């Protein structure tokens, strides 16, 4: 019944033990704190069973921040190893451990920081921006989150019980096949991605219907805020790309569990098919991550330049172009696999084309600043940091889209520097900008600006120190994922500089943690009493901070983009006594949490080949959903008196 699970799975070397135990200790500490403050019931009622996208959004962001720390810890270990590993003996990490670390690093950052931030932001911002009270399917929203959280917990469990995947975050077969990697590592990774992927797909469907069907009256597509437009592009990518991931991982697991031959080296299998499929998902995935960041910057630049966003229509067409092009470039991830020149160059040219709409967006942002009145708040600083770092990343990306150039650079540290430039510069800086920008709206008080600035400078300088040397290392012939190298290569000094960069980035994170603590302590001085701390332009700023749980007592009607700005300019007089109706809202539900819980146990059980338990867990998920479908009263009405009371206060 326990499959392959034995007590051996808990045996690790000192470092892994340290990591595992500190994580368990941290978890126990948090549990103890919650118990001490007697907050379990509060947590259950107000957060775990909540179907409020504002709550779900905060939970996504919390997970993202915790996972960011884990991911950066992986990075610290990697930089430390590579700065001293001038021979096998000089390493402090074994090859296998190092390979698990960079695999976990990539998996954590892409799925549990990147995707978490995307869905977190969408939950927090989209309903408010489109003048809606909720998302299209509040219950599915909860299910999507708890599946994601289950996958995250499974990733953390893999730190302690057994080993993780050591074949890279995309796990190419045949290396990830049963012949070369028969253990639990690859299986953990497969099920983590599968569970998280299903969560992403569900949430993707949810938000696409939300945007397409629940905009307030007057908000045509061409009047939506840019963040929502970018989110729409992201969602189209999600619904078309994630099924590819699900199917591909399923095929790999059939190879591993049932001895099939999709991607095996012999018996007719074709590992190149895996590479194609996984990147047919993988390329849209990176645009899924970066498009919302573009959206955030559009909001931030317009607000903090006190000016309308330049070229709205252009920006929308650029988003559409980027979305469509994302689907036809995937082969640039493996130009070196030996395709014919015509094939290679087709994908190369398609890849290059994406630079055009992306460049247009950058120019439009710059010209939003032109003749504006710019305030260098933290979000604006993150934007400027983005311009610096993302441009380098974009440029090197176009460089690599030329196949013969890529023949030299593929899989080298130059590639690693490129994608970190665009992901950190784009996705992460975008998130940090959005975090500072919308924090007061969601939480009710502003973040400490000074600490935010310190964090920004540490991140920017740290990033440059950590990654510019990697561009050079790549050109020197340094491949990615090496756990040691020869001193005669002359690479070590550059690795040491990169390690210093990571230390600075860690300081940046330290400042961000400090910022949160200090801001909470000083919250009374920084309360957002108006709901509009930044003189904003879009609908979310028309609510209180934080908004009432139903967002809008009266659904707004809009005529233009930047509707709140227009409302403020026209100094719309308040109706003497607004006419309230009872508001239809969903009830909380624990079912989403239970679906997540069963999925977590399923993922663990099937990784360790505990088949009976796996089947029980699947039945658990099905039964939970059947219970939900059979429920009679899933919604309720907020009575007018209650609405009035809330609106008055």
């Amino acid at each position, binding site marked *: 019944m326990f499959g392959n699970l034995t007590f051996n799975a808990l045996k690790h070397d000192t470092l892994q033990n340290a990591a595992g135990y500190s994580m368990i200790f941290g978890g126990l500490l948090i549990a103890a704190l919650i118990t001490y403050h007697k907050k379990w019931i509060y947590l259950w009622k107000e957060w775990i069973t909540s179907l409020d996208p504002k709550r779900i959004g905060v939970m996504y962001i919390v997970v993202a921040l915790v996972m960011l720390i884990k991911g950066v810890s992986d990075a610290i270990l990697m930089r430390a190893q590579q700065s001293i590993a001038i021979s096998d003996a000089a390493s402090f990490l074994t090859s296998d451990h190092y390979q698990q670390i960079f695999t976990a690093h990539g998996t954590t950052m892409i799925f549990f920081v990147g995707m978490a931030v995307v869905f977190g932001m969408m939950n927090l911002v989209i309903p408010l921006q489109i003048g809606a009270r909720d998302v299209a399917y509040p219950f599915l929203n909860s299910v999507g989150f708890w599946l994601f959280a289950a996958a995250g917990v499974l990733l953390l469990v893999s730190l302690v019980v057994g080993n993780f995947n050591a074949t890279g975050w995309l796990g190419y077969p045949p290396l990830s096949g049963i012949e070369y990697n028969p253990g639990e590592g690859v299986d953990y990774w497969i099920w983590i991605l599968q569970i998280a992927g299903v969560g992403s797909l569900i949430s993707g469907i949810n938000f696409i219907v939300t945007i397409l069907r*629940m905009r307030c009256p007057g908000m045509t597509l061409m009047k939506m805020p840019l963040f929502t437009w970018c989110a729409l592009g992201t969602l189209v990518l999600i619904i078309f790309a994630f099924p*590819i991931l699900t199917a591909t991982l399923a095929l790999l697991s*059939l190879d591993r569990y049932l001895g099939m*031959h999709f991607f095996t080296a012999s018996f007719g299998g*074709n590992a190149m098919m895996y590479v194609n499929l996984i990147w047919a998902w993988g390329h849209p995935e990176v645009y899924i991550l970066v498009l919302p960041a573009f959206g955030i910057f559009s909001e931030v630049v317009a607000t903090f330049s006190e000016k309308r966003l330049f070229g709205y229509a252009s920006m929308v067409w650029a988003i559409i172009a980027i979305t469509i092009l994302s689907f036809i470039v995937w082969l640039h991830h493996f130009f070196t696999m030996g395709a014919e020149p015509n094939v290679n160059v087709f994908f190369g040219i398609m890849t290059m084309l994406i630079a055009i709409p992306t460049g247009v967006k950058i120019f439009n942002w710059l010209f939003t600043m032109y003749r504006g009145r710019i305030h260098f708040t933290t979000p604006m600083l993150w934007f400027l940091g983005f311009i610096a770092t993302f441009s380098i990343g974009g440029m090197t990306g176009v460089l690599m889209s030329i196949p013969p150039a890529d023949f030299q650079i593929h899989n080298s540290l130059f590639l690693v520097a490129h994608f970190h430039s665009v992901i950190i510069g784009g996705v992460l800086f975008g998130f940090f900008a959005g975090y500072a920008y919308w924090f007061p709206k969601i939480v009710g008080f502003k973040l400490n600006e000074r600490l935010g600035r310190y964090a920004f400078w540490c991140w920017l300088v740290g990033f440059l120190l950590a990654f510019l040397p990697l561009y050079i290392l790549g050109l020197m012939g340094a491949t990615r994922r090496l756990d040691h190298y020869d001193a005669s290569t002359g690479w070590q000094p550059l690795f040491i500089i990169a390690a210093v960069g990571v230390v600075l980035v860690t300081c940046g994170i330290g400042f961000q943690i400090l910022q949160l603590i200090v801001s909470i302590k000083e919250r009374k001085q920084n309360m957002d009493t108006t709901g509009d701390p930044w003189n904003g332009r879009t609908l979310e700023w028309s609510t209180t901070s934080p908004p009432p749980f139903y967002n809008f007592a009266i659904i707004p009607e809009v005529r233009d983009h930047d509707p709140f700005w227009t409302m403020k300019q026209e100094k719309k007089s308040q109706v003497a006594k607004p006419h309230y109706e*009872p*508001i239809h809202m969903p009830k909380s539900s624990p079912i989403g949490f239970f679906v997540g819980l069963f999925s977590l146990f399923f993922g663990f059980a099937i990784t360790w080949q505990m088949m009976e338990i796996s089947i029980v867990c699947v039945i658990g998920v099905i039964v939970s959903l059947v219970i939900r479908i059979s429920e009679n009263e899933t919604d309720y009405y907020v009575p007018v008196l209650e609405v009035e009371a809330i609106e008055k206060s």
Partner: protein
Amino acid sequence: MTENIAVHHHDPDQEAYTKNVFGFWVYLMTDCVLFGVLFATYAVLHNNTFGGPSGKDIFDPLFVLKETLILLTSSFTCGLAMIAAYRSEKKKVIGWFCVTFLLGLSFVVLEVTEFAGLVREGNGPQRSAFLSSYFTLVATHGMHISMGLLWMAVFMAQVFRKGITLVTARRLTCLSMFWHFLDVVWIFIFTLVYLMGVY
């Protein structure tokens, strides 16, 4: 002229109807992509028989014809059930869906016997890449059918207890969309896998 559209004129159940059906279409598109990957994989791997049998050797067109007729008929009876649903004829709905269920079940049973036979001969999915991709494509469709059958059973129970309401009608609409979608996928399988494999 401002109007508070929020609740005043709209029944939330009615809003939910169009919203949910639309969302279900979006879901079906994602399922399409999933099957697309399986078809693409079959296309790439179907000649990789590694010394084992090819489609010509193992496909039985007559057997497949039987399966196809059963499934097509079940789509028809599903349609009849939905007509009854829009007329709120509870008994007919349950009746026609029961027929659909039995037809769907027969389909699955037939498919399982085909697979069992192949495995007994030593031509299971582990034999070659061709067989892996064949079994997976067809079995994924079969598993979707099975989930549909489970869904049908649950909904029949609901309709029995609650009758045809806006909520149950909406769910039945989604179920029938799912069922017809699986029929379309089967047409593709029938054509691209079986017919093109044998002829």
